């Protein structure tokens, strides 16, 4: 079976997920994730010619709620888990203005 995943692809996915991987990690994950994909690839053997793509795993549809306000968290509660706040806002390292 041909390789299902390249090292470059893992590198790209890591960048997109904001993960910094070392060279050894890249090698290890390429092999490990490749195995996972190979396993899932077994599904490719099923003939799906007449099967509609599934949009959702459950058969349920049209679940709505009414447009009625419910209480929000207090600001203190909202900010409670933030690594850094000024008591009013979430603080994050300066966002680089696109130049």
């Amino acid at each position: 079976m041909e390789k299902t995943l390249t090292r470059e692809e893992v590198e790209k996915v890591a960048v997109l997920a904001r993960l910094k991987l070392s060279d050894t990690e890249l090698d290890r994950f390429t092999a490990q994730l490749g195995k996972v994909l190979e396993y899932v690839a077994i599904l490719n053997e099923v003939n799906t010619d007449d099967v509609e793509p599934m949009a959702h795993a459950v058969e349920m549809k049209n679940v709505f709620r009414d447009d009625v306000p419910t209480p929000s968290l207090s600001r203190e509660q909202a900010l409670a888990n933030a690594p850094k706040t000024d008591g009013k806002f979430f603080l994050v390292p300066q966002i680089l203005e696109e130049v």
Partner: protein
Amino acid sequence: MAKRVAQRVEPMATDTTKDYTVVIGLEVHVQLLTKTKVFCGCVNLFNPENPNVQTCPVCLGMPGVLPVMNREAFRLALKTALALNCRIARFTKWDRKQYYYPDLPKNYQISQYDLPFSHDGWLEVASDEEFSEKRRIGIIRVHLEEDAGKNLHDETGRGTDSRVDLNRAGTPLLEIVSKPDIRSPAEARRYLEELKLLLTYLGVSDCNMQEGSLRCDANINLHLQEGDETIATPIVEVKNLNSFRAVELALQYEVGRQLDEFRSTGHRLGDVPKQTRGWDEKREITFGQRGKEEASDYRYFPDPDLVPVTVSDKLLEEIRGELCELPAARRERFRQQYGLSQYDASVIIDQGRRFADYFERVAQECEDGKQAANWVTQDVLREMNQRKVDIDKFPISADDLAFLLKKISARELTTKSARDVFAELLAGADSGTPPSAGRIDQIINERGLALVSDAGQLEGVITAVIARNEKAANDFRNGKQAAIGRLIGEVMREVKGADPKLVRQMLIEKIVGSEEA
């Protein structure tokens, strides 16, 4: 030598400045006017003074929470798509769009990817500022998604932290994507004006650009005609457009810039990656922005937390029934029903629903559509602009204005006197006397503006004036038309508010009649 150079330069300059088509597509985001957010019960309210007070575990992106679709948001979305002549998908779903930004707490935005709830619609836009003709601008798709929060950047440039307010996170947002059918910067502005008018008529959004409830990105490039060949320049996306005027100016700037760039680099579409440019309002130029890294790789997949939605005929009919008369249809009806010009009808409609309601009330009450249109588009609009108030705050009600205009039709008041009454009503309103029908009659009485159209009342005066001015009467008899003016003036001086038309008519009858006798 110099002459030859000039000859070579000139044709080039004319070729490149004239033979091109501007191609523009607009992507508009509008927040929907629901009471609550799209997937949770937090209130949907513009509230920048109180950051982070409209959040809950769902819109903060806490693990293990479950978003549930707001029915009203979906209905408003359907309403908008129907008004934009879109085809409605009978099966639609929501997808996760993955990217990292501090205003996006879940690290993905719930949006719609391959199965948007609507597609393939259109909006008709005036072909020029006078509304001579209509042009149909295609709509590729309208989809429903959630808004992000708001980042506040440190503007001192000293590297302090950025602040994040998540009040806005999860606000229902419609994305309306036009086809690249727009052919000039002015047309882009007219498209936005018409779209805003439609959305505010429907009541689905307040479209307040200052508060960010309507936002616009523009894609633009040029199709240059070089002999038989059409060359497309690279597409540029312009962002940070915070007014319709900014959209027009930025696109105008881009046309010139892309022409210059093509002349110097020769770059065609596909030669360079798509560029994003910002709009610098102060310097009135666009500037290159660093593209988001791997920006196109959003790795969409169906959101497992939200179930799909199916749209039945019954629901569609119900929503269709809720649609009010749309601006384009009303513009046309005003033209036909009240005999207005296309221009007047547009001026009235473009002021928004309340203003058009005001006009229609005046027109119906005074039973003269043209008269109502003249007053509403000139006197009322002028005073509104001077006072910087909208029609809801305008001191003279539609009924009172109609009461006044009716007196003109009934020949109880000249148009000039009516204008005086109008001015005095406004002056009174400014000093605490509210306009009313009674107040109108009072002003007319106090200032003796009532037209005397009672022939009996004029009879004696006219006889006396003719007797006193035998020479003028004779001149008129002998064909000197101008002589009558002096007589009319004298009658008018004696009977304040006399109807000049009636006076003229009675004078002529009397002078000519007495000759025959």
